[in-house]
């Protein structure tokens, strides 16, 4: 298995270096407009945080997979894991917030030793939509995870899982050898306990990320193709497909530069800029919390270490009044969320 950029001591493991790359070159020379200039054209700068709707908690960067496009640079060698103490601070906020969605991500969130305790406690808060972003293979990785479908069901967790394609070739190329077969088995097990079935309240959604330097196609058309292929070939059902654009961060940025696709990819993002997507950007209604409790406008900013523009920096000092209305921190990676139909952790934002 390949190692994370951090473990390899690669230049792009450094978030400052990533921000430099995104700020210099074609953007500094004026060949392409900066994101700030672009949204200023429609008087949408500065972007402001609206009412908090989604609390996204990254419980650690450890993962059993090392996906080639991962913006987290997650992997088995990443040791950043949220402690129970930080989880308790998060729970205080979850209990008191009006946010309707709680979204746990990673890494593989299930690998955090306090994951189950945290889910049990958080489920008691009665948040309307409780998402766990599961990479699927974790369910088949080790005996201790085999009962995860039942555990998710017990706590009425909404499972959102990555699946880049309905064929083995494209899936394994992006996510590692053997991932496709394990993912199919995990999806069948989730279906077996009632997840993803038509009319079922046990929500199972899939996330599609392009497996290369191109943008996702139409989300509705992709969903139709995925549903047809997975049902015909594997008798698998799911509810919705979220098409998410790959953002030029961490391993995907490293891939873009190494394959000499970086400039063309940034051109395609800028050309696909859709001002209509700006109003619904997820950073305007989301708060992202890192494994060590720091606050960011989104998971992407977290990986670039661009913390919130507020006097409140940590979950322990959370104050909704001070965070609402803050200016969102932006850079050129934000073009990934405004391309085409827009992109967010919940898929497109303009339809």
């Amino acid at each position, binding site marked *: 298995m390949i190692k994370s950029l951090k473990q390899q001591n690669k230049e792009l493991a450094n978030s400052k270096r990533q921000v430099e790359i995104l700020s210099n070159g074609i953007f500094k020379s004026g060949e392409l407009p900066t994101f700030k200039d672009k949204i200023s054209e429609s008087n949408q700068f500065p972007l402001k945080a609206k009412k908090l709707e989604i609390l996204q908690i990254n419980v650690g960067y450890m993962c059993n997979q090392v996906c080639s496009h991962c913006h987290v640079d997650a992997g088995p060698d990443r040791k950043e894991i949220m402690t129970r103490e930080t989880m308790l601070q998060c729970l205080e906020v979850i209990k008191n917030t009006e946010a309707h969605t709680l979204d746990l991500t990673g890494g593989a969130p299930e690998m955090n030793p306090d994951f189950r305790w945290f889910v049990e406690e958080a489920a008691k808060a009665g948040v309307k939509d409780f998402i766990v972003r599961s990479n699927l293979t974790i369910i088949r990785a080790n005996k201790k995870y085999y009962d995860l479908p039942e555990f998710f069901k017990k706590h009425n967790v909404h499972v959102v899982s990555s699946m880049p*394609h*309905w*064929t083995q*070739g*494209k899936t394994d190329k992006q996510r590692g050898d053997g991932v496709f077969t394990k993912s199919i088995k995990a999806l069948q097990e989730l279906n077996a306990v009632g997840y993803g079935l038509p009319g079922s309240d046990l929500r199972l959604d899939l996330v*599609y990320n*392009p497996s*290369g330097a*191109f*943008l*996702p*196609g*139409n989300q509705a*058309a*992709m969903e139709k*193709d*995925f549903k047809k292929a997975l049902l015909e070939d594997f008798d698998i059902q799911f509810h919705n497909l979220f098409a998410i654009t790959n953002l030029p961060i961490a391993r995907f940025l490293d891939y873009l530069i190494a394959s000499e696709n970086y400039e063309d990819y940034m051109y395609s993002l800028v*050309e696909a800029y859709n001002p209509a997507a700006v109003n619904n950007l997820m950073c305007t209604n989301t708060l992202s919390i890192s494994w060590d409790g720091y606050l960011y406008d989104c998971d992407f900013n977290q990986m670039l270490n661009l913390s919130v523009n507020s006097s409140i920096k940590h979950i322990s000092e959370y104050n909704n009044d001070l965070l609402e209305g803050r200016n969102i921190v932006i850079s050129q990676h934000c073009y990934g969320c405004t391309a085409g139909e827009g992109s967010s952790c919940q898929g497109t934002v303009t339809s």
Partner: protein
Amino acid sequence: MQKTYYDPADLKKFSKISEWNEELGAKFFDYYGKVFEEGALSEREKSLIALAVAHTIQCPYCIDAYTGDGLKRGITKEEMMEALHVSAAVRGGASLVHGVQMMNKVNKLDM
């Protein structure tokens, strides 16, 4: 003077064709857009047909456009290559089937 006949950047300027004849340009692009909408055939199937035709007419702009379009739609490289072989087979067959004309002529004239 431009050193090559084709420049990839020109593909992005395709819509500028309308600048010199707005009416016909608009009609063409309306038609083009309508053709590729889902109908009896899916958009995906139409994209594969376009890719095969692009190779038949050997249009570098079209190959660029429909390879990218296929990737966005989740079309696999196996599907793309099969579509190309259909194009190659029909194209090769078109040469070969004219051999019947040759044979007819030879049979008629030859003693």
